[in-house]
């Protein structure tokens, strides 16, 4: 199951009511087809997370409209799962019960017990169901976070720089994991990242955002067939284009040989 995301002239600002209002997003127009994996690339602090929060239903936009399958977003929904940059696991619950939060909140824990187990296996944490979060490494915690989002069988998965705080090796592993899970389930996915290579590796389309207040600078379709690899020569042109848009010259961005 997957949904279409439509953003029409969406803008967002913080503050107001006498304080200096801070515009964060301006005139965002975006269409995401069902089942697509779209990467949102942009410099730090440009408002990418704010955009995801609007789509997740956590904050309403100050202007424009955000639609899911044509219907306006009015609040959060378990089928629109958000994976945060911090795993934010509940420390008083073990891994299994953290993943089970979704079903428990929706009063379906008995029915979905098997799904919880399945999802924990899917992310590769089979033996760790009864471990507490304080004993997990960063990568494992982020996997639990992923599992927690997936257990509700979402039609839209929003990923807010999920791999930003992990070491480089774990990042490589988890990039492939997320791709695999996406292929298996077929949901629509929006990946916010500041890592250009990650965006090019994973996405069908790369949307480049400017610095705050964020506007869409470019919407590139990545026509390269998967599996792709880091440093893939077929991605070189797109890479140069994206980095150019973000303000980097060729000399600054050449791959280390």
């Amino acid at each position: 199951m997957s949904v279409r995301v439509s953003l029409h002239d969406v803008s967002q600002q913080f503050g107001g009511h006498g304080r200096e209002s801070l515009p964060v997003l301006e005139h965002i127009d975006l269409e995401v087809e069902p089942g697509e994996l779209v990467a949102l690339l942009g410099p730090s602090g440009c408002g990418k997370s704010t955009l995801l929060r609007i789509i997740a239903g956590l904050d309403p936009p100050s202007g424009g409209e955000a639609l899911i399958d044509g219907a306006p977003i009015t609040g959060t929904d378990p089928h629109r799962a958000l994976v945060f940059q911090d795993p934010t696991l509940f420390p008083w619950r073990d891994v299994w019960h953290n993943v089970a939060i979704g079903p428990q909140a929706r009063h379906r824990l008995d029915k979905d017990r098997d799904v919880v187990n399945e999802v924990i296996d899917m992310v590769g944490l089979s033996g760790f169901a009864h471990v507490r979060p304080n004993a997990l490494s960063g990568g494992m915690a982020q996997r639990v976070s992923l599992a927690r989002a997936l257990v509700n069988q979402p039609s839209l998965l929003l990923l807010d720089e999920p791999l930003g705080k992990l070491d480089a090796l774990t990042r490589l592993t988890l990039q492939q994991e997320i791709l695999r899970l996406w292929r298996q389930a077929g949901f629509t996915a929006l990946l916010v990242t500041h890592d250009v290579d990650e965006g090019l590796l994973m996405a069908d389309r790369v949307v480049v955002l400017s610095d705050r207040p964020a506007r869409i600078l470019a919407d590139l379709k990545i026509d390269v067939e998967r599996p792709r690899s880091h440093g893939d020569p077929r991605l070189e042109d797109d890479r140069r284009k994206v980095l150019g848009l973000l303000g980097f010259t060729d000399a600054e961005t050449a791959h280390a040989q």
Partner: protein
Amino acid sequence: MSTTESVATASHPGESEARPVDGAASREGAGWRERLASWCAAPAWVTAAVVTQVWPDHAPATNAIVEAPQHNTGTLAVAELIFAGLFTLVLLSGRWLPGPAQRLRRFSPWLAALAGYFLFWEIVTAKAGLLVPPYWAAPQLLITDFRSDHAILLESLWASFRLLMEGFVIGASVGFAVGVAMGWSKRVNYWMNPILRTLGPIPPVCLVPILFVAMPSTELASMLLIALATWFPVTVLTFSGVNSVNRQYYDVASTLGASNRFLVWRVAIPAALPSVSLGLFMGLGMTFPTLIVAEMLGVKHGLGWYIQWQQNWSDYPKMYVAICIMIVLCSGLFALLFYARRKVLAWQQDLVRW
């Protein structure tokens, strides 16, 4: 995809402090000092027992109020021997029950010091007669007084315990409910905060005259006093705990489909529990002085009342016995609270150590 990431194991409560000492003691040839320290408890108590029994008691000055303590010297010696025997037994059973034996070894120097203290007390009061009744009492005098008054003492203990528990439970429950409401709802906070700030810090003992007049019975008044003593810290810390919950927890639960009810009961309250437990400790601490004052002033039962009664008779040894029982009550209740906290907040074990 196989994971080869390492998992840090959560350390066992108490074990990590025990490890250096035990590791040292079990290593071959390591510190005869450590080994001596871990076995010194039993011999110390045996020494105390022997000295108590063998050294003749100082003849007491004739004083109609004070009983001769001699006939309980034997009891004291036997009690000390029993302690020594118990410690030896626990240490010897170390192979089958390593836990208690290990803890005993760790506390051995302390227990030996305790034996030394008892011996010192015994010598200074009963043997050498340096400190005598009515103001000073030998251990065997306390034993005598306990045996003669044990019915009243145990009844007083029960009365105090009951009053304390009733007041504490009511005060803590109300405090918890109000604290959660204040932390969750801005409107409740608006109305309750000024009340909390002005009435909360008042020591309940100041309200004793008012309450004893206003309430139908002194029992009820005392219970209310103790509840008031508990209420303030529990409310403040529960409120603070709920208020400081990481907002991201709410975002996460929201996007997973949580209703408001789920957010309060399954996110806010569990996250606030560490702060709540701190409030409970403070609340419990506030109940003891309130209890004693309430009992001294109005209620005709309980340890506070007994202490004052004996004080009016100038029977200080009996007063000391009651104080000792109170020590057991207070530290026992705190130990219980610590135990409950360790069970409920097991997840917090490695993050906070107190």
